[in-house]
């Protein structure tokens, strides 16, 4: 309130503005996209200002709260694989408590965005997704394309049935999906490499099998990856080998999400605030 004549020469002793509350906010589920037998994409009636790779915490009041990568920020979209009680509830109910009065439909409470997402660097980007790790890759591809980057995507799954057509908007490749939120990348000239372990879709093998030749060809400036731990470790190694910097999104058990509780420790870093995306490959420590 006061401003002092001498203030310019005086030290600012850490005047620190209180932030706004960051409590969970209720959001309506607007649309549910069935990706595959155990994965659904939920499009919420909310928008958020986020970077691909960042995540939100989704709360079902009284039950639990869990981290999910943003598959889009406007509208907020998450792709959820059913692996346990929380994700099952999300799937079954659309989500949330029964709602009274004028607001109908189910809700999920979200807060965020949390953490650091992917940093865009280079022109020729290779995006690698495994399992629901593909979710943030659609978001990242859209941002990268807007910036004029050349984008290649490699996705790996166990079988063709485990792929996520809605997220990628790859209806031209895996059959038309009637109700998808994302851009049809293929139409935008995104190169898509698909691997399945059983060969039921795309190339047979692991996603790393599709990645290695691309790296070896020397046509990738940066690798972006999200997926199972083993895939990330393998990619990290490959990228080091080929001298390619990587941005890898790791997972750990999230409690606070605020950099306090230590639950998400990963090599001396806190994935909820320092990550989930960490520099790897040629940039790794």
């Amino acid at each position, binding site marked *: 309130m006061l401003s002092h004549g001498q203030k310019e020469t*005086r*030290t*600012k*002793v*850490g*005047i*620190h503005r*209180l*932030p*706004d*509350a*960051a*409590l*969970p*906010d*209720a959001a309506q589920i607007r649309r549910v996209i069935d990706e595959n037998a155990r994965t659904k994409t939920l499009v919420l009636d909310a928008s958020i200002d986020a970077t691909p790779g960042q995540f939100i*915490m989704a*709360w079902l*009041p*009284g*039950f*639990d*709260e*869990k981290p999910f990568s943003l598959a889009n920020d406007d509208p907020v979209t998450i792709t959820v694989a059913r692996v346990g009680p929380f994700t099952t509830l999300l799937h079954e109910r659309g989500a*949330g*408590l029964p709602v009274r009065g004028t607001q109908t439909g189910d*809700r999920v*409470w979200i*807060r965020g965005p949390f953490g650091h997402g992917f940093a865009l660097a280079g022109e020729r980007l290779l995006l690698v997704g495994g399992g629901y790790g593909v979710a943030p890759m659609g978001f990242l591809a859209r941002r990268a394309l807007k910036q004029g980057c050349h984008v290649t995507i490699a996705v790996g799954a166990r079988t063709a049935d485990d792929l996520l057509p809605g997220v990628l908007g790859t209806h031209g490749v895996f059959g038309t999906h009637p109700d998808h939120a994302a851009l049809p990348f293929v139409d935008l000239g995104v190169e898509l490499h698909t691997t399945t372990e059983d060969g039921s879709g795309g190339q047979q093998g692991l996603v790393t099998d599709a990645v290695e030749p691309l790296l070896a060809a020397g046509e990738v400036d940066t690798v972006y990856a999200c997926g199972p731990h083993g895939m990330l470790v393998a990619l990290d190694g490959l990228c080091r080998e080929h001298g390619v910097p990587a941005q890898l999104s790791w997972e750990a058990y*999230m*409690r*606070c*999400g*605020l*950099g*306090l*509780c*230590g*639950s998400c*420790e990963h*090599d*001396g870093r*806190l994935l909820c*605030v320092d990550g989930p995306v960490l520099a790897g490959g040629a940039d790794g420590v």
Partner: protein
Amino acid sequence: MDLSCEVVGIKLKNPLILASGIMGTHASLLARAGLAGAGAVTTKSCGPVPRRGHVNPTVVDWGAGLINAVGLPNPGAEAEVQMLCAAKERLTALDVPLIASLFGGTVEEFAQVAETVVGAEPDLIEVNVSCPNVSSELGGDFPPTPFASSCDSAVAVTRAVAVAVAQAVKGSTSRVHREGTAKGGTAPPIAVKLAPNVPNIAEIARGVVSAGADAITAINTMPGMVIDIESGQPVLANKVGGVSGPALKPIAVRCVYEIAQAVDVPIIGTGGVNTGADAIEMIMAGATAVGVGSAVYYRGVEAFSEILDEMTAWLEEHGYESLDEIQGLAHREPAYGVAPSPAPIPSV
């Protein structure tokens, strides 16, 4: 600027201590806080056996502070010793003392955990008798009434821990003796961490000091609740949690002030310290060192170096050369006594 201070014979290069429960779960994170500038670091409170803690949400930012009920997840005392040893090694290299925080569900459990963790040779043991978020599971009622709620129970725990530590080290319970050995580097001194939701924290401080506490940490979080009106549910899975951050600061400053008037041991003033000015305020209230917890959320782990820079700048500008000069300043009588002209009797 010399920001060093001494807490029960332990030299700290600066008074900022990473508070318990913040990043204190892994040797790597404790070392990181040390590297980031902390003068000492405190581990997450550890109990006798492994605990999972509560489901989420466990910590939320409600606007004027945080509220948490993490539920004291910890790997149990045995595993903790390994972590402490690893941390001690890394911290010794950084010249940053290690404070081991512990809790128990009974007086005996406190003693047992103390006996175990002493093995890792922490520089100080902090006895968390004040966690508001778990005591119903630890044998208490709802609402939770931690050991720090009454002088008697806080004294009982302090005495048991003091005995356990002394015996673990050399079979002696004499405090003078313990202090002697502390200088020799073997028996760590004990700080007892108090709770703010008591009518008279000074009385409890007097009690635990007479029972063998070498220092007081004040304060733990203040029990609170945040309800989401959209669902009608408390936000924390544990419903009740502990308030920390900016909202807690005046409560903590008052507690430190009252404790400083009551006892003559060092106080680790903790609660809502977010800036250099806050740390200076806490020291003026009577703290010797200053706990930093929620600030790690507000400012990142850089909180330590930033707060130190702010303190240094302020102290330099005001011509102070060491923290001793401002320690307890708020207890000094003002230059002029209270005005002799009272306010008028209100009219109606």
